[in-house]
């Protein structure tokens, strides 16, 4: 490895990777037994294990999605009966939310990149990190056991008093989600402490990569919101098993109280899902526009702003719950405030691309899709925040389309962008660029084709979570199902060429994108303790491209 002085002079410089290479095995080759993976305390291996599991959960959730979509192909019964349909959309929601969206980016990429970006050897609590992975898997095992033995028909929102009275298997699934909540808290806590205590000399708060800022804001929400969800899940389990009556109107309880407690978590939870996506995209847009991020502080602080106001917006899910007009007005305004903070980010991303030297690689393609989904989905969110508009749209497919656009659209775009952007760093291999672009195009198209018809369906009045529907909604439902198939096909292509690249891919350079992100200051894949030789020094900002037109960033090695 080159002496650190040269890195200090040139922030984007890359340590020569091949010197001493044989003495410093990468984290991938350092120990190859199964045990060395399952019991590892290395944040990079834990990140890779998260990646494998969340991809598996995504597959399970996706299969449920396709079952739901197929069933809705015709107005009457198509492939399954009504009860199975109810179970399928519940499981689709539960798996996608708790097992994919929440852990995906923090678990896989946060774990891998955060310490690298901080110049640290590991996260602050490596054992807690591993525990957090196993809590996720343990919770998943319990929940999946529940799905196989009965399933649940409440929808992922578990609304009482239905969820306390249904005869389906509520308890194990909610208990599984409770345990998964612990996993989420542990990850968030670990990231907060890591960011506070493990920054390498030279990395001040305002030199943190924006991905770290986003993970930090996410972690704050995870730590502050999840305990409340944990309690409310316990209460519902207790009530289902023992009839405590706390949410049961027959015993004096109040089901609306459940909604308050549930959305106090679940509204911020949508930012647990989408803030990491914003963080990824801030990295990607700088790297592929070859420009310093426009308005670094605004982007960093707007993450914290979103995290903060996100806690005061939950009432927008309850506009039709009998809430007073005054409350509705307050929640509407607070919700729109979230839009303001998100808009700050959008303008800064666009400002970054403006006059940049855009390198249109696969991650950038996903950035374009992301920007579109965020803006379109975000605008529908602002429309929803208007209480009077929410009333007719509530619980129609408009809701389904809205949250899929913003939450799933934006987050999946970021997940795929992260996967492609960091693939060389994580595995030391390159994938096929052409296929990357093809699959990105298919996925973006498929998403539109799936959910735009759902906006129209919702606007035309088709309620969500219905097994049958009137004839006149069929055309749009067929379109949506066709779009879902296209989407699935796009993901299939990605799965194929990425797996191929893992095995046969060309060996990646240390910094193939010539990025100035701190995580590229080490080899690809990184050695076990992240850096060989002296730690790099950090004298420049993480997204520092002096002049995008001049290739003053060292060429790919």
């Amino acid at each position, binding site marked *: 490895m080159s002496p650190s002085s040269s890195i200090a002079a040139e922030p984007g410089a890359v340590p020569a990777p091949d010197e001493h290479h044989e003495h410093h095995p990468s984290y991938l080759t350092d120990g190859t037994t199964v045990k060395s993976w399952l019991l590892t305390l290395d944040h990079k291996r834990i990140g890779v294990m998260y990646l494998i599991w969340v991809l598996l959960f995504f597959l399970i959730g996706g299969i449920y999605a396709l079952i739901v979509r197929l069933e809705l192909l015709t107005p009457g019964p198509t492939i399954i009966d009504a009860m199975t349909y109810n179970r399928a959309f519940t499981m689709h929601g539960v798996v996608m939310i708790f097992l994919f969206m929440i852990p995906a980016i923090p678990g896989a990429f946060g774990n891998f990149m955060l310490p690298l970006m901080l110049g*640290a*050897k*590991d*996260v*602050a*609590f*490596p054992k*807690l990190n591993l525990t957090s992975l196993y809590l996720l898997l343990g919770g998943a095992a319990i929940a999946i056991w529940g799905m196989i033995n009965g399933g649940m028909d409440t929808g992922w929102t578990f609304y009482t008093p239905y969820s306390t009275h249904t005869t389906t298997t509520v308890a194990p699934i909610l208990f599984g989600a409770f345990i998964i909540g612990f996993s989420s*808290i542990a990850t968030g*806590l*670990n990231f*907060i*402490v*890591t960011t*506070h*205590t*493990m*920054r390498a*000399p030279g990395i001040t708060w305002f030199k943190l990569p924006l991905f770290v800022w986003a993970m930090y804001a996410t972690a704050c929400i995870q*730590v*502050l919101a*999840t*305990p*409340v969800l*944990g*309690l*409310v899940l316990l*209460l519902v389990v*207790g*009530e289902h098993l*023992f*009839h*405590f*009556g*706390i949410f*049961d109107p027959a*015993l*004096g*309880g*109040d089901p609306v*109280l459940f909604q*308050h*407690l549930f959305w106090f978590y679940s509204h911020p939870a949508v930012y647990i899902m989408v803030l990491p996506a914003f963080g990824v995209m801030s990295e990607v847009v700088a790297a592929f526009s070859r420009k310093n991020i426009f308005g670094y502080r605004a982007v960093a602080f707007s993450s914290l702003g979103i995290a903060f106001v996100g806690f005061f917006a939950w009432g927008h899910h309850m506009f039709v719950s009998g809430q007073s007009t005054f409350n509705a007005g307050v929640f509407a305004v607070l919700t729109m405030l979230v839009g303001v903070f998100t808009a700050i980010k959008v303008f800064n991303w666009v400002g970054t691309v403006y006059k940049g030297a855009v390198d249109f690689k696969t991650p950038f393609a996903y950035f374009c899709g992301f920007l579109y989904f965020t803006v379109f989905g975000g605008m529908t969110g602002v429309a929803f925040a208007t209480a009077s508009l929410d009333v007719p749209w509530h619980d129609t497919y408009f809701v389904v389309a809205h949250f899929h656009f913003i939450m799933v659209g934006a987050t999946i775009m970021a997940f795929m962008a992260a996967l492609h952007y960091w693939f060389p760093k994580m595995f030391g291999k390159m994938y096929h660029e052409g296929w990357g672009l093809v699959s990105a195009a298919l996925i973006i198209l498929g998403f539109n084709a799936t959910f735009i018809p759902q906006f129209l369906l919702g606007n035309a009045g088709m309620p969500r979570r219905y097994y049958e529907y009137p004839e006149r909604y069929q055309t749009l439902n067929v379109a949506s199902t066709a779009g879902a198939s296209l989407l699935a096909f796009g993901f299939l292509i990605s799965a194929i060429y990425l797996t191929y690249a893992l095995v046969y891919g060309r060996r990646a350079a240390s910094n193939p994108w010539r990025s100035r992100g701190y995580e590229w200051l080490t080899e690809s894949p990184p050695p076990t*303790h992240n850096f060989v030789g002296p730690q790099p020094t950090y004298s420049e900002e993480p997204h520092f491209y002096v002049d995008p037109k001049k290739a003053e960033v060292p060429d790919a090695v």
Partner: protein
Amino acid sequence: MQSSSAVAGTAGAPPVPQVAAHFASLEVQNHAARLGMWLFLATEILLFAGLFVCYACYRFLFPDAFAAASRELNLLMGTINTLVLITSSFTAAMAVHYAKEAQNKKVVAMFVLTILMALGFLVIKYFEYAHKFHEGQLPGAYYRFEGIQLPGVSMYFTIYFLSTGLHAFHVIIGMAVLAWVTTKAMRNEFSYRNYTAVELGSMYWHLVDLVWIFLFPMLYLI
């Protein structure tokens, strides 16, 4: 943050704190441990906060039932238990004091006292519970008490059992944590450079105490 003067000690000397390889120094490691514990305690408080919200809502909805039901609790036992817990928090704090002075025997003594008081707390709680079970002052659908027949009264006992039950569960966890730190003290591990485990253990215990300080007036007094 940069200082790395503290490294694991030489063989033979009394146990010296271990600095894990990924930390720059012992100071950083202790700072991380403390910050982590504070955050964890914050999540615990939020967990109970959900129950406090439930209590506030139903107290607002059923003020008479809640006032009548809270008079059914045994104020004497509750007060004794409060005193027991506050005293146990004091002994836990003394343990930290002695750990800093490397008086490991006294650390053991203080923690054993704390654990004994915790046990006493649970025993008293057991008698309270037993009485409630006997009277039929039970949550939700199980409520059978003839004495008070106001709407919403079973909700009071739901919240009573849920919150004191969750608290008792924390008492048990706390006893386990303190027992584990005690075994370390028996191995003479603590000194002025290394007392983080004692400190964090008693912080947890203070949380258990603190939650009770909220539960006691909420359930017994008002």
